[in-house]
């Protein structure tokens, strides 16, 4: 079975500082990895994904994530946080093939709070 762990329920960062939201995964075979953001009373918005190739993926709103196969991690990063980045962030995984679930498997989410 595949799974995603987001070890921090909440991350607090001062505006202008770099931020990291952690994600580790477990999947049979190679993964497709995704980050989504959810603002209050809104649906999920896609930020970025890793399919193959370059381990550093750049996405929307200045976010990036680094795929680390040996550590089975896909941490979300941004060099300089904005107050408007405050939201709930979800990491998700899907196996390339081989009988993995057809849906995405999500972590429980991390609340990111950017303090002015």
């Amino acid at each position, binding site marked *: 079975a595949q799974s995603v762990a987001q070890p921090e329920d909440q991350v607090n960062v001062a505006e202008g500082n770099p931020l990291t939201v952690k994600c580790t995964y477990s999947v049979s075979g190679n993964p497709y990895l995704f980050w989504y953001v959810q603002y209050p009373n809104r649906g999920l918005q896609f930020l970025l*994904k890793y*399919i193959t190739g370059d381990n550093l993926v750049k996405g929307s709103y200045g976010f990036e994530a680094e795929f680390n196969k040996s550590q089975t991690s896909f941490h979300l990063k941004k060099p300089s946080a904005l107050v408007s980045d405050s939201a709930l962030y979800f990491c998700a995984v*899907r196996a390339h093939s081989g009988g993995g679930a*057809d*849906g*995405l498997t999500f972590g429980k989410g991390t609340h990111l709070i950017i303090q002015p």
Partner: protein
Amino acid sequence: GAGVSQSPSNKVTEKGKDVELRCDPISGHTALYWYRQRLGQGLEFLIYFQGNSAPDKSGLPSDRFSAERTGESVSTLTIQRTQQEDSAVYLCASSFLTRSETQYFGPGTRLLVL
């Protein structure tokens, strides 16, 4: 173009009643997914449609839950004899067919069972 739409946005029902939730995917997206998000939880996969067929129903929590899709377009998720534990936000997503494709989510239907 338009994104994924869902209706109703909110639904309050009494325990034991049936409810139908609707999803309109992005035009041209062959794949459609239903997820459930309970308060304070991540998303839980319910069912996947490839065109009109549902090869993966493994996530449906009980036989009270069913879903259908017609014309590779609209999908409905039906919950029969609702229970209080069914209270959640039900999210629909759509994508092109290959497994690496991004799933785009609708705003969700917030279901409250009294």
